[in-house]
């Protein structure tokens, strides 16, 4: 029994040693895959630290929703200087908190499928939601949302719950944008093809899709880039739907209570340079927010190009989300 007691003491003492730090520090709230060793976080941190003579400190929260949640809970006493990882689905809710402040930087270098004018949020990457399919199980995937909805029920897909997951909400908005008030009826038709609705993208991708449980999963149009570039396999591809694809833009913003606003703005400015953006394509597996020119990896040229960009203004999403979710619930539980 002496062993755990010793470990207990050790564990109490260890963190004390780790907290001694000096110099100006920029605290960035973000989500796990951004800050992980495979994500862009470490490389971005190193590049920025070289030019700012400061330290970047990532605080990792469970998901993009949690970043906002944490910010709200902390209010004016937040440790965060910058929040990185909100998206167009949660942006307006974040704006309404009044906890964020203007970025005041030049965003003319942005290269997005939509025009961007926002005084609080700076995009750092973007992507389309898409169904990724396993070419070995499904050589001929549906060519449109309509074809998917009309497909026989033995075609199974895995989706994420719009109440708990960003892509899940993306699909809800996608159908809403394409079908308008007809969306609930379309959901009812789609229902029997849905193998299951997982809590998060990871649950579905890891536990089910990669175990071969269904040939199609709701993901991003950029997902195959990772499989092609890093796993060296063409097996997983995104289906190009005729109606177009729903757009997600990921954004960062400066926190109003930050005492490092100048440094925070410098970071946001740095975000729109090659030094930051070159790590986005293969490490965050999304499109870079600026034109990287020849630095864009080749596999990104092999990805699908949607014929149309589907997109609701963030304010419209914030206003209607609750109603659309309730509609969806009704259609799915009928």
């Amino acid at each position, binding site marked *: 029994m002496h062993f755990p007691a010793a470990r207990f003491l050790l*564990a109490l003492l260890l963190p004390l040693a780790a907290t001694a730090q000096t110099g100006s520090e920029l605290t960035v709230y973000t989500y*796990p895959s951004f800050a992980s060793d495979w994500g862009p*976080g470490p490389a971005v941190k190193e590049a920025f630290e070289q030019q700012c003579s400061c330290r970047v400190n990532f605080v990792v929260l469970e998901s993009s929703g949690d970043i906002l*949640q944490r910010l709200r809970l902390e209010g004016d006493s937040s440790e965060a200087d910058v929040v990185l990882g909100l998206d167009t689905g949660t942006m307006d809710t974040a704006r309404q908190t009044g906890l964020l402040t203007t970025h005041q930087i030049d965003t003319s270098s942005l290269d997005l499928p939509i025009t961007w004018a926002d005084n609080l949020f700076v995009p750092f990457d973007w992507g389309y939601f898409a169904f990724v399919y396993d070419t070995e199980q499904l050589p001929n995937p549906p060519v449109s949302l309509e074809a998917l909805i009309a497909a026989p029920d033995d075609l199974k897909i895995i989706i994420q719950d719009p109440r708990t997951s960003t892509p899940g909400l993306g699909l809800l908005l996608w159908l809403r944008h394409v079908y308008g008030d007809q969306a609930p009826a379309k959901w009812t038709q789609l229902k029997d093809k*849905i193998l299951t609705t997982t809590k998060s993208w990871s649950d579905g991708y890891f536990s089910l899709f990669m175990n071969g449980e269904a040939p199609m999963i709701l993901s991003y149009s950029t997902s195959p880039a990772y499989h092609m570039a890093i796993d060296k396999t063409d097996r997983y591809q995104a289906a190009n739907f005729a109606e177009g694809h729903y757009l997600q833009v990921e954004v960062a913003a400066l926190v109003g209570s930050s005492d490092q606003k100048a440094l925070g703005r410098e970071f946001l400015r740095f975000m729109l340079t090659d030094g930051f953006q070159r790590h986005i394509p293969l490490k965050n597996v999304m499109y870079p927010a600026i034109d990287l020119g020849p630095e864009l990896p080749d596999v990104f040229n092999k990805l699908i190009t949607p014929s149309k960009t589907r997109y609701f203004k963030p304010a419209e999403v914030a206003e209607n989300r609750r109603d659309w979710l309730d509609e969806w619930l009704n259609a799915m539980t009928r």
Partner: protein
Amino acid sequence: MPEVVRAPLSHPAWQHWPGSLLAAAIILLAVCGAGALFWQAPALDIGDLWASRYLRSVVLFTLWQAFLSVSLSVLLALPIARALDRHRNFVGRGLLLRLMELSLVVPTIVAVSGLVSMYGRQGWLTVVLQEWLPFLSWNLYGLNGIVLTHVFFNAPLATRILLQALESAPSTQRRIASQLGLGSLWLWRSLEWPSIRPVLPGIVALVFTLCFTSFAIVMTLGGGPATSTIEVAIYQALRFEFDAGRAALLALIQLLICGTLWWLVLRKGLNTALVPDRQLVISHARPDAKGVRKLLDSFLLAAFVLFLTLPLLAVLARGLPGLADAMMPSGFANQGLQLLQATALSLGIALPAGVVSVVTSLLILGVKPRSANTPISRLLETSAYLPLIIPPLVLATGLFLLLRPKLGIASEGLALVALINAMMALPFVMQLLRGPLRNLDPASTRLADQLGIRGWYRWRWLHWPRLRRPLALGLAYGTGLSLGDFGVIALFGSPSAPTLPVLLYQQLGSYQINAAAGTGLWLMVVLLALFGLFNLIGKPSTKSQRLHSPKPIQLETSDA
């Protein structure tokens, strides 16, 4: 011997105050946690919530799946525990027990992956089943999958607690049963049922609560929003709609339903039927452990072993390439090292959490109220189960609101994570320790009283030898639960250094499917090692009391 020296910790207050205060603190913490949400909430519309058809169906479904899961888990656990009690010396029994202990703490995403590769649409077993019994259409997704997974998680837990109860059956009665050559039915009535009965309501309530509050499993395997639990609605309200009031109200509904169940269980009293018990469990050859019965038991146990191990083998098969990569010299520099660092951080949180939960359990259980129905004893019992019923998300969010201004540095956040983890492990640890601590036979107590063995010495010489094994197991549960925790640490946010589960999710989020499978496997290996280690610690080291004799009477001092 001079009588002037008082035994350390022998003042009566030591028996009373620390435990009562801790229990009160836990209840206060839980009430404040949930209360903080109400306080943050603008206005509550209860009518609106009750009018929701969806919510009513969610509550009904949650009750139904929890009922099915509990029934099946306990019905499976009973014969298995009896078989394990009948046969105490077969090869691999120790390993089987460790695996059973493990099932509670395996992170759900890892276990679900294993179960899917067994029972899913492309699962090994499903494929075999379709080959042999094509008319049987098996579909994992829906109620099937939810109940199957809950049984996978909870039947071993129930078995483990039942087995411990069975093993504590008084040795005198066992001897008589052995001498009389009683048959299975008679043994059940005279020996087994009396030992099981006091723990059974607790097990039912425990498993029910676990299934009732299950979240990721229900969503992943449920098929769609028709099969949701209240926790999903709470999550939605807190994370996406920032509707603290709605979340608190939903938490209250959950509290009411589960609380009623616990109240019913506790009203009957969990501590009745105190069976006298000596320290040494003298195991007698059971007269019903031969012949057809033996064959039946072997079959049953083999099936259970397969049920438990096949999904875990799938986890092994899937994780091996990733883990091998990390352990190779080429991959060790970053991947392997990262794995070890995450392990160190995880243990740094989990071991204190385990110790705290065990010490707290002991102090709370150590309080001896004058009668079983005083407010104090109610308080004590409630404190043990409250952490299970209050959704961790609500608790953590509430505590965050309360403590936030005082949380300066990340290490304090980690300490809080350890504390909440410890609290969440309390119900399990107390379930394990209650029996052995309370069931001290009157003869021994009287003897200790007469000899003036009090305080520390009483603990050292009377309780410790009997508590050693359950304590070690409790420590393993407390540590294991904390080690696999993702929810609490994710809310408080980890600094750049990840714990093992956070690392797993980071890898998943970065398409590192193989590495993630490897991390999942590694987590299982660490957990298994931990349970094995604590089991060794729990073994009495004094002399060799094990007599290997073929005689009907032999001394059994360990379960391995």
